């Protein structure tokens, strides 16, 4: 079965500094990887995904992620963190096919990002 791991429960970064939130994956076949963000008392919001193509994927709110096949990683990055980026971040991987075009997704345990002013 596919899986993702987020090794850090929490990441603290000063406002204006670059941030990285780590994710590693384990899949059979080609990986379909996603990042979602969750603000307090809200649902998850899609940030970006990797299906194929360029290893550097650009997404919403200035976030990007780097796919590294040899290290089986898909780390989320942002060049300059904002206090408003403070939230819970989930890495996810596409798992089994349910029906034509419908899939199951596996989420990592989440990383709380805290950006300090």
């Amino acid at each position, binding site marked *: 079965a596919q899986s993702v791991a987020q090794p850090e429960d929490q990441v603290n970064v000063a406002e204006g500094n670059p941030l990285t939130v780590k994710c590693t994956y384990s899949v059979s076949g080609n990986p*379909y990887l*996603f990042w*979602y963000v969750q603000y307090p*008392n*809200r*649902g*998850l*919001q*899609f940030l970006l*995904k990797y*299906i194929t193509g360029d290893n550097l994927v650009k997404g919403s709110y200035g976030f990007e992620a780097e796919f590294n096949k040899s290290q089986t990683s898909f780390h989320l990055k942002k060049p300059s963190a904002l206090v408003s980026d403070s939230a*819970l971040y*989930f890495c996810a991987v*596409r798992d089994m096919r*349910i*029906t*034509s*075009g*419908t*899939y*199951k*997704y596996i*989420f*990592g*345990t*989440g990383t*709380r990002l805290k950006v300090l002013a």
Partner: protein
Amino acid sequence: DTEVTQTPKHLVMGMTNKKSLKCEQHMGHRAMYWYKQKAKKPPELMFVYSYEKLSINESVPSRFSPECPNSSLLNLHLHALQPEDSALYLCASSQTGAPNEKLFFGSGTQLSVL
């Protein structure tokens, strides 16, 4: 309209009550999902509907009963819940077979079982 709307936002119920959660989307998505999320934990898949048919039930207790009356609506009927069922219940939808693959989530229903 790119929203998934869930009602109610908050729900408090006793263990003998019957209540329902509602989810609605008008994006034409034919896959709809129910997830359960405990505080500071990842969402756990409960049910998946594809083209209004139940495709996955992740061994969810029968006190949770999903229903998909049409392609825009998804309900979760609750009966005789336990305090450990208290959680945030999230609905999500996605296009099927789309290159723009991603899940759209509602804001959830925060459920407390007393």
